[in-house]
């Protein structure tokens, strides 16, 4: 940038400050403009590739079966695992997502995400005291998912669920966070 300008100055001085754009000047400006265009053409797909989550509005969630209702006795809380619907062939066991299924009476359920609402660590169910406890920072929740103690800002995240053909279905597919609670 500096070099052509300097040369330009000497040149215009030599020509007695005539304002006509020189051929060199034209080449430089067109060259810069072309490179800016080419750079944008290169950058746009790169940025779109990496930050696609800002562009794509598709809901990654779908209905997943957690198995027969008989697996979940009334008045009990059990762990269930599903294969995440958003999968890649190389996911391995990371796409096996656990959740806590609490069956109250009949077809009344509560399905809690495994992730503590504080920072996402896996909560563990303690039947005897009726609490979910988090191993990271000591968050505690009651059996209905309400916050009991510790740093969590809210109760456990709950999945939408439905009962169909004798099976329990939940709507899952996304890691729950405070800005996106299931």
């Amino acid at each position, binding site marked *: 940038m500096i070099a052509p300008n300097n040369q330009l100055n000497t040149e215009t001085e030599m020509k007695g400050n005539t304002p006509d754009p020189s051929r060199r000047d034209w080449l430089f400006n067109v060259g810069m403009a072309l490179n800016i265009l080419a750079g944008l053409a290169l950058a746009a797909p790169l940025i779109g590739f990496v930050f696609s989550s800002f562009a794509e509005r598709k809901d990654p*969630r779908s209905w997943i079966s957690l198995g027969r209702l008989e697996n979940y006795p009334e008045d009990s809380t059990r*762990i269930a*695992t599903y294969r995440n619907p958003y999968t890649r062939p190389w996911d391995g066991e*990371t796409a096996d997502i656990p959740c806590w299924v609490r069956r109250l009476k009949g077809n009344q359920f509560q399905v809690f995400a495994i992730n503590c609402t504080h920072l996402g660590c896996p909560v563990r169910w303690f039947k*005897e005291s009726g609490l979910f406890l988090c191993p990271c920072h000591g968050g505690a929740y009651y059996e209905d998912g309400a916050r009991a103690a510790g740093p969590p800002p809210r109760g456990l995240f709950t999945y939408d669920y439905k009962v169909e053909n004798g099976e329990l279905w939940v709507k899952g597919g996304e890691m729950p966070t405070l800005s996106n609670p299931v």
Partner: protein
Amino acid sequence: MQWLRKTAVWLDDRLHLTALYASTAGHEVPASAGSWFYVFGSATLLCFIIQIVTGSILAFVYIPSTNEAYTSLQYLNHAQFWGWYIRAVHNWGSNFMVALMTAHMIQVFLFGAYKYPRELTWISGVFLLLMTLAMAFTGQVMRFDQDAYWGLTIGASITGRVPLIGAQLVHVLLAGPIIAGETLSRFFTLHVFIIPGLIIAIVSMHLRLVLTKGINEYPKPGHPIHKSTYDAEYAEILRKEGVPFVPNAVGKDLIFAALVIIGILACAFFLGPKGPGGPPNPTIVDTNPRPDFYFLAIFAALALLPDWMEVIILFAAPAIMIAFLLLLPFISGTGEKSAGRRPVAVLSVIFIMLTIGVLAYMGETSPWSPNMGAWSAAPVPIQYVRGRTPLAMHGATIFQNKQCRNCHMLGGVGGERGPALDDVATRLTGPEMVRQVIQGGGNMPAYGKKLTPAEVEALVAFMETLHGRATPPAQDAAPPQNKLPRDFAIVMPRAVHASR
């Protein structure tokens, strides 16, 4: 030998090696800079080179796929010839790098080396600090085990607290809606290509600035610097006592470099690689995720902060700290350099290091986390059941079965989330215990729905016996109205009433 000399002269003519040497390794430094305090920067760079070499070698075998990474780590540990050792050197190299970088930063701060005219050297160093921490976090993810998986979850949950665009940022971080498929590839790219590339670029600038602006002279107390005179003073120092860095001032760096390498190799050989821990399978919920030691202090702060402060501390505090570090050479760019005349600087370093150290210790011990196995695994101390009534002994069983022990210690064993209960009877009367158990409060869940009145009675009967032999139990301030044994029926309605 004539041809050898000719080749050397030819190479020098083409590559200008002599000139390059004179302006780099042979550049003049103040003789006072050949100090043992000045060895940490070169040692940090050495660690970075070791990390590049060992990391490249590990990448020959490592597979950055969520399905294969864990197996390839096991393969490196157990099947690849010297694989465990290279993993260990890479791990210890990173520990040494963070430690030496911290030492370097403290030394530069205490010796006033960030002051005029070396502002940019300091600022580029701040970016190197951030990049190194980013390498530490992404490196922890490369060791793709349970801790890596849940560490990512914590990272995503923190990101999810960003206002407005949190959800999208989580997707950018994880490269998808959950930790799977592309997540590890993304962190591999950051750890192996992008961040090291940035580090190399910034280190180049950092070193270039050392050459252009010179190395800081060993500060003398009572010699404050002024922008108008410093450049001439420094030129004078170089004129009077300037020596070429190589060979005159490099000796201590060399010795320290060798010690660092030997230290890394010895730690690697005797202490071995770190992990991988359990497999990165989220369905294994019996896990106790902990970050590597660089992030234990933050991990601890997140447990100890009141929740209204969390978002502020998570986002505002780092921004303020980074801004302060970047602005430091402009806030105090002149004046006294010697630590002996800068008590606030010295005290700040001590305070910050103590804070980080104490938080990291707390993160390691995690007293806020329930002791998940204490209720079924820890025996009731025998002195707490000896000579007790059947009711109290039943209460001891309830104490265990209802998992009170997970948060409350007895005899030094159990959780530390709540207070130890060895002498609870000296602090609370029976009715107060009933209220606390049923209603909870003070960060204790309420157990009213999970305990029958009979269980509460037995539990409280047990806890009322928990006081020292010579220490009387707590009493109500009101004079005792009857000497009858405590009747649960009298207490219970009051407690239930209170819980409404």
